[in-house]
């Protein structure tokens, strides 16, 4: 390096003496500051680790569960509850729940049509009624296992204590519930997917279109300059402002369109309003539009001009050049940018709260005009609750969300690596 001079290279003793006293302190300052820089970097890494640790810590761990009715007391002729015949289970259900509730089950579909698992589920939910009384973190569960066992045995003699992962296949496939033991993220995942589908259908063509216009057609007129500056500024607008815009435009002004009334698609006229998946998707679409445009512009700009000149020289029109030559070359870049923009949209919460995502939805969304909840909304709701068990399922939902984002980002990286060699 330049700064490491060998003493022999210093020409005169006088000069050497002149800066020798400072040299030591200068180098020491250099080492101290390097340490500062390294520690800062380390803090960044520690923050990320703490975040991940914190989530994992709550998503797994010991849980003490008390049953309202002991499942062992429900066994018939010594056959445990899990292995009972559906008819016996139906009988238990009828014995223990109120008549009105049983009639409600029967109204949904005849009791004979319930599968064994479904009846077992009902028995667990309404008869056994397990309730989480306390949970421990993953760290505690691993480090102080005996301590927990002893404490729990003292405090909750009735309770069953076992190591529980809050992220289970049941968690992924069951809808929302007011009891954390039975709550799942099925409706939230479906809501997120529907919303993203709408977002993409809207933002991708429009965003790429705008990028093509700005890169391939624009002459440097004031209007086009304004458009470009405006897009850069829109990218910096806080997401909650988009939520307010969506509330005013999509939910309120375009209510006939977004509630589905215009298409005659209204299941229940009394509750139909513009707070639907369509509104949410369009709002997020507006939100990520600047990102998609800016990324697509960069990808299109990276296509060498010689490609265009060759095509135009052979007599192709402007659009033919773009469609057959520029776009195919720029597509990997455009797609990568779009995926990154989508992963931003997947994690957005604030605009959807403002647009009016419902928080307690137990049915699957069935189209763009359906009410909805999404994964981040669900995490927000569960985190905001005071009970500790909801923190556990919030952590599990965060793991699901992070896994979804990781998949999206990994596919973007793969796409980039796979196609980046072509040009």
């Amino acid at each position: 390096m330049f700064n490491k001079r060998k003493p022999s290279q210093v020409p005169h003793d006088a000069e050497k003496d002149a800066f020798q006293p400072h040299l030591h302190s200068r180098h020491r300052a250099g080492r101290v500051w390097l340490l500062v820089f390294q520690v800062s970097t380390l803090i960044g890494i520690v923050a990320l680790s703490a975040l991940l640790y914190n989530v994992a810590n709550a998503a797994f761990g010991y849980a003490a569960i008390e049953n309202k009715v002991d499942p062992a007391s429900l066994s018939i002729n010594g056959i445990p509850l899990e292995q009972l015949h559906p008819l016996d289970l139906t009988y238990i259900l009828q014995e223990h729940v109120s008549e009105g509730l049983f009639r409600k089950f029967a109204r949904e579909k005849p009791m004979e049509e319930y599968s064994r698992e479904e009846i077992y589920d009902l028995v667990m939910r309404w008869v056994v009624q397990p309730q989480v009384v306390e949970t421990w973190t993953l760290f505690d569960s691993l480090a102080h296992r005996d301590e927990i066992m002893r404490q729990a045995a003292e405090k909750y003699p009735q309770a069953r204590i076992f190591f529980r992962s809050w992220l289970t296949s049941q968690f992924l496939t069951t809808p929302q519930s007011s009891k954390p033991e039975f709550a799942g993220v099925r409706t939230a995942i479906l809501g997120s997917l529907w919303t993203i589908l709408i977002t993409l259908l809207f933002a991708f063509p429009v965003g790429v279109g705008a990028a093509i216009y700005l890169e391939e057609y624009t002459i440097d007129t004031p209007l086009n300059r304004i458009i470009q500056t405006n897009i850069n500024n829109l990218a910096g607008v806080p997401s909650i402002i988009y939520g307010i815009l969506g509330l005013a435009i999509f939910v309120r002004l375009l209510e006939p369109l977004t509630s589905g009334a215009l298409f005659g698609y209204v299941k229940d006229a009394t509750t139909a309003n513009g707070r639907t998946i369509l509104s949410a998707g369009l709002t997020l679409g507006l939100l990520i539009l600047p990102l998609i445009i800016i990324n697509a512009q960069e990808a299109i700009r990276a296509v060498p001009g010689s490609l265009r000149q060759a095509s135009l020289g052979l007599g192709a029109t402007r659009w033919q050049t773009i469609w057959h030559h520029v776009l195919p070359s720029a597509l990997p870049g455009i797609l990568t940018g779009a995926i990154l923009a989508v992963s931003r949209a997947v994690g957005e919460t604030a605009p959807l709260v403002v647009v009016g995502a419902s928080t307690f939805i137990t049915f699957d969304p069935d189209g763009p005009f359906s009410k909805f909840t999404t994964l981040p909304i669900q995490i927000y709701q569960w985190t905001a609750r005071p009970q500790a068990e909801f923190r556990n399922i919030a952590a599990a939902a965060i793991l699901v969300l992070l896994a979804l984002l990781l998949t999206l980002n990994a596919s973007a990286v793969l796409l980039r690596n796979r196609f980046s060699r072509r040009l």
Partner: protein
Amino acid sequence: MNKLHKRPRRGEGFIQGFLFLAAALSILTTVGIVYELGKESLNFFTRQMWENTNKQIVADVRPEDLTLTINSSGSDLHSGEIIKISEEIMQVTAVAGGQVTVARGLQNTTPGAYNAGLDIFESRRVSLVKFFTTTRWEPQIGNFGIWPLLNATLMTSLMAMLVALPLGLSIAIYLSEYASQRVRSWLKPILEVLAGIPTVVYGYFALTFMTPLLRSVFGKGVVEIYNTAAAGIVIGILVIPLVSSMSEDALRAVPVSLRQAAYGLGATRLEVALKVVLPAAISGITAAFIVAISRAIGETMIVAIAAGAGPNFTFNPFKSAETMTGHIVRISGGDLSYDSIDYNSIFAIGLVLFVITLGLNIVSQRVVRKFREVYD
């Protein structure tokens, strides 16, 4: 020969039209934001709210009467004030003891006959001056002073900047001036991961990790469960990658010749980094800082989860206080009915937020354009 003539292609015109519309949609979005925020904010500031003066009329009033006899209880009436009795709106033109002269049937209401004992309501509007100068935000009783919300926003943002600016800049200098190619290749993806985590997850982190941490350090009596310090620090962590990546771009854009010249004069690595490269990249770094502030001010979920629900004008970072964004989220969380004062108020807050963040973004672009040192 004819074959080579340019044939008109009408389809191309359509395509170009569509592409132009796609680009123009961004203008429409901005116009939509400004128009809606402006319109509803105007409604917010011109909206009439009726406050009971606790005065009653003491004699029956016929539709043609222009004087009202009132009792002396409650707050005084003044000339020029708009009042309401039952559904009719009137304007006070003169007050003389218990006798009030009014102009009747204002704002398309019809003069009616009223019995003695009816309450008199006084019109109140949210004034722009009060909005920007008072320190109470209590929608239930008609107090709309934005300072508690704005103050909480500034507190969390300041806290975030105290965390993000030094750390972000240090990381940027380390990455650009010190780190080897190998270190960069794994450090940058880590920062990208940090930047890609949804803000609601940071909110969870703030509430379940940072708050307990602060409480264990400073004591549970000092730090409330919801507080602006935890939210601010976590916002700081959130914007670290933004600051570091933008600053690093600026640092790396400084030509190598500058560094070589400094090394040639015998500067140490630190001196090159801090005294040569940093000043040369200062415009880009300033821009990064401003964008980071704007991002911190607009950040929503972290403060909605961890900073507390309920406007509170305090300078204590360990107390709960609701920020502008947090207030918008909480108010609009339920089924907000249109044309209510709450509905209008989120637009007014949104407008303030929009003006601040847009202003900061424009300033950052100006800074880059004006103060950039060009080395060629």
